[in-house]
């Protein structure tokens, strides 16, 4: 697959853009933040998005989705990045639905169509330590998971737990199960994450997702798809901050001229432009590599996440500096992007984690 968008892809992007701009402007995130909304995202808007087919873009059509690829899904989340839209696509679709698709027929049927319809929110918990002990044909989960995306609001939690002798295995946990507790943790970007507590949470053998000991293998694939998509979201945010900053350089006057006429700023803007174009290429290629099932997809995904993380942080830091005093006010949206940049750069592996992984996958 090449880089150019087909007519269908352009139409999808236009639909996504229109929806995101209308329903999920930055004011939406601000409103949730300022009202201390306990959920941190809007279920009604998520359902509306689903009704337009935007939630299930990359979910296979037999499970209620559009059956398109990551390239298409990337177009949607890129638009979300433009407005810092707090929607649970990463937790529910990229991580959740993808993990569930590795499950049994009935596990898929039960949850995936409901995800595509915008009815179910799913979280995947993978950082922390949970043990699963066999007891009377069931599994008893004990331990804790932290910084789980949308974990406080999920209708279903998938957790990776260590099973004696067979190793890490995925389990589906209903949040109303006895012994399960959760609490939202506030992060600087106002987007929701949660800590999860498992105190002798008993689940049936049918709650196991994938093979016993098959957790890491499923997780590896699911994480890579999510990393590529998160990179696309970051790309959208990067573009937005760049556009706003270049506009400011043209509008803002000092010494009687637009500050964008000063070479000290011009050159930095031009350098950012180059960094962003390179970032765009690797993000688009990583998404396409996943769709094409290329052998080096994991390598490209790590390159994409590393670059998007670095460029996003560089872009927001430059944006704040170039905006001057107004850049550090809460009133200006740039600060929201600054906060998001640092969180997104930390999510799903930092730039240095991915550089190390890239090196390992390259054989050095």
């Amino acid at each position, binding site marked *: 697959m090449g880089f150019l968008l087909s007519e269908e892809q352009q139409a999808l992007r236009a639909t996504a853009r229109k929806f995101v701009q209308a329903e999920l402007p930055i004011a939406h995130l601000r409103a949730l933040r300022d009202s201390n909304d306990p959920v941190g995202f809007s279920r009604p808007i998520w359902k509306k998005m689903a009704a337009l087919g935007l939630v299930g873009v990359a979910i296979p059509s037999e499970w209620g989705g559009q059956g398109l690829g990551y390239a298409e899904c990337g177009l949607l989340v890129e638009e979300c990045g433009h407005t810092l839209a707090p929607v649970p696509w990463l937790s529910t679709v990229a991580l959740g639905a993808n993990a569930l698709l590795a499950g049994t027929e009935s596990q898929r049927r039960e949850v995936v169509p409901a995800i595509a319809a915008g009815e179910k929110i799913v979280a995947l918990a993978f950082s922390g330590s949970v043990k699963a002990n066999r007891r009377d044909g069931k599994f008893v989960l004990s331990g804790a998971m932290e910084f789980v995306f949308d974990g406080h609001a999920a209708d279903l939690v998938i957790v990776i737990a260590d099973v004696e002798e067979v190793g890490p295995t995925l389990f589906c946990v209903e949040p109303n199960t006895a012994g399960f507790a959760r609490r939202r943790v506030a992060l600087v970007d106002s987007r929701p994450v949660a800590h999860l507590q498992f105190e002798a949470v008993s689940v049936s053998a049918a709650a196991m997702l994938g093979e016993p000991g098959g957790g890491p293998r499923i997780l590896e694939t699911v994480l890579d798809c999510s990393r590529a998509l998160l990179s696309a979201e970051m790309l959208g945010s990067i573009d937005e901050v760049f556009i706003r900053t270049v506009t400011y350089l043209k509008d803002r006057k000092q010494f009687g001229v637009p500050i964008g006429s000063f070479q000290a700023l011009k050159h930095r803007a031009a350098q950012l432009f180059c960094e962003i174009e390179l970032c*765009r290429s690797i993000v688009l290629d990583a998404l396409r590599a996943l769709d094409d099932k290329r052998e080096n997809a994991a390598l490209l995904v790590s390159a994409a996440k590393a670059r998007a993380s670095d460029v996003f942080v560089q872009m927001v830091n430059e944006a704040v500096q170039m905006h001057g005093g107004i850049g550090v006010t809460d009133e200006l949206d740039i600060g929201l992007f600054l906060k998001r940049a640092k969180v997104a750069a930390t999510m799903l592996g930092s730039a240095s984690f991915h550089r190390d992984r890239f090196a390992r996958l390259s054989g050095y």
Partner: protein
Amino acid sequence: MADQETFRREIAGWLEQYCPATMRSPYRGEEEWVWGGKQATFWCDDARLWLQRMVARGLVAPAWPREFGGAGFSAEHASILDEEMKRLGCREPVRSLGLWMLGPVLLKFGSDEQKRAHLPPIARGEIRWCQGYSEPGAGSDLASLQTRAVLDGSEYVVNGQKVWTSYADKADWMFCLVRTDPHAAKHAGISFLLIDMATPGVTTRPIKLISGRSPFCETFFSDVRVPAQNLVGKSGDGWTIAKSLLEHERALMSRARDQNADEEGQLDDLARQYVGVSDGRILDAVLRDRITQINMDLLCNRLTMKRSAETVAAGWGSGPESSMFKYYGTELGKRRRELMVEIAGFRGLGWEDAEFSQRELSLTRNWLRSRASSIEGGTSEIQLNIIAKRVLGLPD
């Protein structure tokens, strides 16, 4: 489409049959480049044979009309040839400023007479051209050039000096920017003139660089008489033509792609050799990270060139500007060369001593050579100015 697939099969078959095996191996160094011209040298017989075979089919300039020595291919067929050559790893039969830069300009601005006289020898690799742009007082500010051409009957009399003329001492002809009207506005008084380097009054002097090599020359003109029919376009059109010519640097950029792909992975090979490996990993974790940064940048740069080429081919505009590739590619190349020398330690800093292998000695020289890359052909700062103005629309 069926026609294109047939064409692709035919051309691939021809390349597989007639491209010698040595011409399908990666370049080992600049010594293996073939430049053609009257003083042409070939580093091996296969190189000569490959050029001859390509010339015979007009494939050196595939998209040029047959009457001018080309193959008369459509743009689609020419790009299929290009793709198949890349796929099969075929080397370019000849490197040529005439082919890449002057040819397209003559096809657009040249008279019929000029096309007939100059294009076929370029397509045959028989005439080597050099570019006379920079002057001692006109570097980044190219349009301030002072080399004068005064019309005297049916001839121009040229006086002045060019500098940084690549391989002027080995070139047969020069396409040159001269000032024909000293009273006109800065950009309007410039013309584009073709000068036979064998004309009395033309002298060249190689400039020795820090790398010890001399790819550039100073070129002096002292009452050089040039037939007036060697003026391309009209008097005063020079700046327009020069800008058009610079656009063809994109062709050069896309050619750089192969080389770029070859470069990915070289740093880690070098580190394995000079720094060492433990458990399959380069020993020094900090170095490993720095290598990865550059390898990732090379990868992203290559993908961006590919994306840009697709955008151009689809007629969706020029994509990210060529200035970006010039700026980013050369700065990246400098960082890469710097790190290569660092990885090899003292063995990457040898100078004309049998203690060192050829590869080690070229590490030193290529590092030094790379310092010029962000200066020649428009400095990095000029490229950033162009991006800021043309792409971002920032005010002067």
